[in-house]
């Protein structure tokens, strides 16, 4: 079997794995962004309790491996609370909650990077804290967060491969299944490497140009 043939045979399967990877990553990052925003705002609030909750979330999630979290959400919780969750949802939840903890810090850093004077100016005009945050601070923070956000995107994209432990057939898993049947590890890993690489390059170049255009 030459490489062309190998490619022809395995490409559709890898592509469908890639689709799963991208779907999970995208959905997870939506969740992560919401969690990051919520807990990020909590972590900069004046309320000690809210700050503490946010701190716990970040420490707990960053402090344990994703694989443990995935196991917990997919196998542990349903057993303990007696409900059923499908692997895809569990995977999205695990990666989302995991990335969310990092997003908290990204949001926090982004908000703190906005000059303090911006909030003071907004409040001085009579705007409420909430409105100042939403319309003045966050739009500026988001721009500053782009590089860190893309980094997280890349990390989550790769982390998705850990979900093979709960039976999700994403890109890495597809590759391993192919290798398990044809034993052409190097060529197959090569193809997987290139697929990740292409996606990540696309992402990081889009991000860089976005960043350039948004610099205000």
């Amino acid at each position, binding site marked *: 079997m030459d490489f062309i043939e190998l490619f022809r045979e395995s490409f559709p399967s890898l592509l469908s794995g890639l689709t799963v990877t991208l779907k999970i990553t995208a959905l997870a990052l939506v969740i992560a962004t919401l969690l990051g925003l919520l807990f990020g705002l909590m972590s900069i609030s004046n309320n000690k309790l809210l700050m503490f909750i946010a701190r716990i979330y970040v420490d707990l999630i960053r402090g344990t491996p994703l694989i443990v979290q995935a196991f917990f959400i997919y196998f542990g919780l349903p057993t303990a609370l007696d409900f059923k969750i499908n692997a895809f949802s569990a995977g999205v939840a695990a990666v989302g909650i995991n990335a969310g903890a990092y997003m908290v810090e990204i949001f926090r850093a982004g908000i703190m990077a906005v000059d303090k004077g911006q909030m003071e100016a907004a409040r001085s005009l009579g705007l409420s804290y909430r409105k100042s945050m939403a319309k003045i601070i966050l739009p500026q923070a988001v721009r500053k967060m782009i590089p860190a956000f893309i980094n997280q995107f890349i990390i989550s994209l790769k982390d998705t491969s850990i979900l093979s432990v709960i039976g999700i057939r994403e890109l890495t898993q597809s590759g391993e*299944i192919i290798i398990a049947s044809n034993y052409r590890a190097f060529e197959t890993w090569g193809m997987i490497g290139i697929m990740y690489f292409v996606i990540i390059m696309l992402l990081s170049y889009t991000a860089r140009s976005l960043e350039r255009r948004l610099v205000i």
Partner: protein
Amino acid sequence: GCAKKESSAANSNGKTKKKYIISTDATYAPFEYEENGKYVGIDIDLLDAIAKLEGFEYELKPMNFKGIIPALQAGQIDGAIAGMSITDERKKVLDMSEGYYESGLALVVKEGNNTIKSLEDLKGKTFAVKKGTAGAKFAEDNKEKLGVTIKYFDNTPSMFQEVKNGNADATLEDYPVIAYMIKVDPNSGLQIAGEKLTKNYYGFAVKKGQNKELLDAFNRGLKKLKENGEYDRIIAKYIKK
């Protein structure tokens, strides 16, 4: 690669014992697993006995199963004994010994699930399998015929948990492995449905076209073990009939 050079160097100097690096999985009781910090199991005991008989030394190198075949291909290790079924696909890239244990697939379902007794009861249901195993191959071969969905896992505990949680209806596992597990773990929550589905043999593997000497030694030693009763003693130690 270099593994070969090393052993041939030892060859020319007939007195020193040859030392091979042999890989195993370490997560596959009763064939290889860890007990009190030592690797034990049928595979390990067989290998040890054969090495003594044939006069070679070995260094045991446990690794994740999915690294074993690439490691053999790359010459990082000289041989592998890891409950590895002899299949046509594997024989394309590896040289494998005579079968040293008759195995076969068992259909495993959740404890108390008596609706599934044979393959036919599985139409439209979901299989959980471990990728790269004979079970995965079997499920793939019967996918069309039975109209089943296949979910792939990385390791055995996840695959079993999937069935226990009811996310998959059945799983396929090598008969001796699952029988052993159900026996030692009363809380396994699993049971075997029906009889052995297939019959296949585990073999010792080396890189294709290399280490013939080691492969021959294994075959020779295995034969002697069977003749002198040691083989039965080892099996009985782990699987009481």
